[in-house]
Every structure is written in structure tokens, then in C-alpha cells.
């Protein structure tokens, strides 16, 4: 009878493992409304409290604080962005300017779906409350910088 019991436990283990793994999880995201007729939906962000993260090719990201073109973006690999977010959030909180720390995620044409999901996940883990996704307004100087660095 021992082989029979062995086989049964093997099957039990198999079913236990497969049932747990196959439950898909979902990520709840919201994108800014595109309705041009409602200009009051447009939000003004504070330059000193806004961090823009551009997602590029080969799992690379470029980030900068404030207004595009004023400060040079930093290129980092996607998995190391965590430290930069924490550091920038600390600096923004210490600046004394009212308002929340905002992260603007701009996935460009070079990035993959994986990069995008990873970035949103990172922001969730770090509990960055205000995060915006913007894939329409990738500015020319941002594009140019990314092209120069070969990540677009």
C-alpha cells in the first residue's frame, strides 16, 4: 500500500501547488482623463516636488526633478530607481513647500510592458501616493536626451 499512498500525496501536493499559483492578481491603475473640454481636470504640479521618470530601452530609466531641461536627467537601471525615489522624496519633504511629492511616470516607445508594471509596483511598495502616468506629452528635450544616451 505504501506506493499508493506515495502517489496520492504526490498528487495532493501537485493540486495544492497549482491551485495557489494560478490565481492572477491585478494592479489597479488610473490614467489622467483625456477630455480636452474640461480644462479644470488639468493639474498644476510643483516643480520642486515633482520627479519625472522616463522609461527607456533595455530596462533603463532617466529621471529628473522639476522642470524638463533645467536639471540634467540621471540615467539608471530600472531596478536601482528605488534609492533615488527615497532620496528625492526626503529632499522634497524637507523643502517645506506645501503639497505632496509627485512622481510622473512617462513610458516611452522604447520601454516594455514589464518596465511599466515594475515601475508602478515600485511606487506602490514605496507608498508614493501621488503618481501620474503620462505617455502623451513626452517633451522634445526629454526625447533628445534619451536619444543621446541611447535609451530611446
Amino acid at each position, binding site marked *: 500500500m505504501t506506493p499508493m*499512498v506515495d502517489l496520492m500525496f504526490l498528487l*495532493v501536493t501537485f493540486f495544492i501547488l497549482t491551485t495557489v499559483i494560478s490565481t492572477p*492578481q491585478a494592479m*489597479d491603475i*488610473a*490614467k489622467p482623463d*483625456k477630455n480636452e473640454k474640461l480644462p479644470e481636470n488639468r493639474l498644476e504640479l510643483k516643480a520642486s516636488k515633482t520627479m519625472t521618470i522616463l522609461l527607456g530601452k533595455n530596462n533603463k530609466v532617466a529621471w529628473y526633478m522639476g522642470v524638463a531641461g533645467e536639471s540634467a536627467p540621471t540615467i539608471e537601471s530600472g531596478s536601482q530607481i528605488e534609492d533615488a525615489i527615497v532620496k528625492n522624496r526626503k529632499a522634497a519633504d524637507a523643502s517645506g513647500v506645501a503639497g505632496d511629492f509627485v512622481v510622473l511616470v512617462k513610458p516611452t516607445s522604447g*520601454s516594455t*510592458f514589464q518596465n511599466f508594471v515594475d515601475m508602478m509596483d515600485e511606487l506602490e511598495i514605496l507608498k508614493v501616493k501621488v503618481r501620474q502616468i503620462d505617455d502623451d506629452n513626452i517633451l522634445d528635450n526629454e526625447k533628445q536626451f534619451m536619444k543621446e544616451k541611447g535609451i530611446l
Partner: protein
Amino acid sequence: MPRIKVKRTSTVTDMTAMCDVASLLLTFFILTATARQPEPLAVSTPSSTYEFKVPVENNAILTIGQGKVFFEVAGVKVRAKTLELMGEQYKISFTPVEIQRFSAIGSFGVPIQSLKSLIALNGADRMKPGVQPGIPSDSTDNQLNAWVLNARRATKEINNQDMRISIKGDAKEEYPVVKKIIDVLQKQSVNKFLLVTNSEAKKK
């Protein structure tokens, strides 16, 4: 010299109770396990630490992979109603048998003009590569837009609930493809999505 006597017992134990428990557990897991539907477009989703279950009802899943998009709406009744509404819009009449067969199909990706021939195929033939080219989502013939809109209408009518839209994208898919689909949805003022992911352990 006296020796310590070790009492020897037989190593053979009664396995019946253990066997009973094992078979009980086995039966339970086999019965509760939901057989995974074969998918015509296989994608490997990226992983995240989000812990939000994909809703079983009032949900449509858009599968994006290899530059194609496939559509699925949850619920047999909702599917039937969606097809009816689509038929009205594109002036194609589906017979009750076709509607019934369609509501058993999960994810699919064919233009509405060739949907009839897809319904006529059997399950195994539908899964063959090359049979389903994806749902057209260009601005000239935006059938994806129509499917989503009609599915939302059907869900509202039958379940009186708002439909959620889940996007199941392949991890390697380029972002512009995903953006194109999201733009179609945003035209309908759908700004909230669920991105289907695999669960991943939280790192500390």
C-alpha cells in the same frame, strides 16, 4: 553478562488511515480545482506585489501579445448579450445556436466579419496558431472599441453593475502597443484599468 533487551517491534504499520486521508484530500483538490481554459494567445504576465484579485464577474479581459489584441468578457449571459448588440451594430444576424456556442468561447481575436466561421470551428481548431489574427483596433475599423462599448452596455443591462476592464499584457510587449489599446479605452472615458499580473513576494 546480562544484555539489555531491546524490544523489537514490526516496522510495518497500518496504512489504511493515512491512505484514507490522502484520498480525501486528493478528491477535494481535484474537485475544487478549476480547469484552466486553453488560451488562443498565450502571454506571460509581468509580476507585481499588488494583492488585488481579478474580479470574476463584470469584467472584460483584453489580452495583448505579439502586437495583437484578444477580447473576453466574463459571464455567459453577458457574452450572449454582447454578441447580440455587436450583431445589431454590424448588421450581422447570429442564430440562437451561434450565440449559445459563442458564449462558451473565452478569449477570441477575430474581426467580426469572420466571427461566424470561428464559432463554427471546434475548440481545438480555434486554438491553432494563425486562425485568430486579433481584433482590429485601427481608427478606420475600430472593432475593439465597439466590443468594449457593447460589453459595458450588456454588463450594465444584465448585472446592473459597471464593468471593469483588465489588461493582460505580455511582459515583453512594447509599450506603444499597450498605449494604443489604452488610448482606445480612454476615448470611451475609461480611465481606470486593472493590469493582470502574477503575484510576487513582497521584498522587505
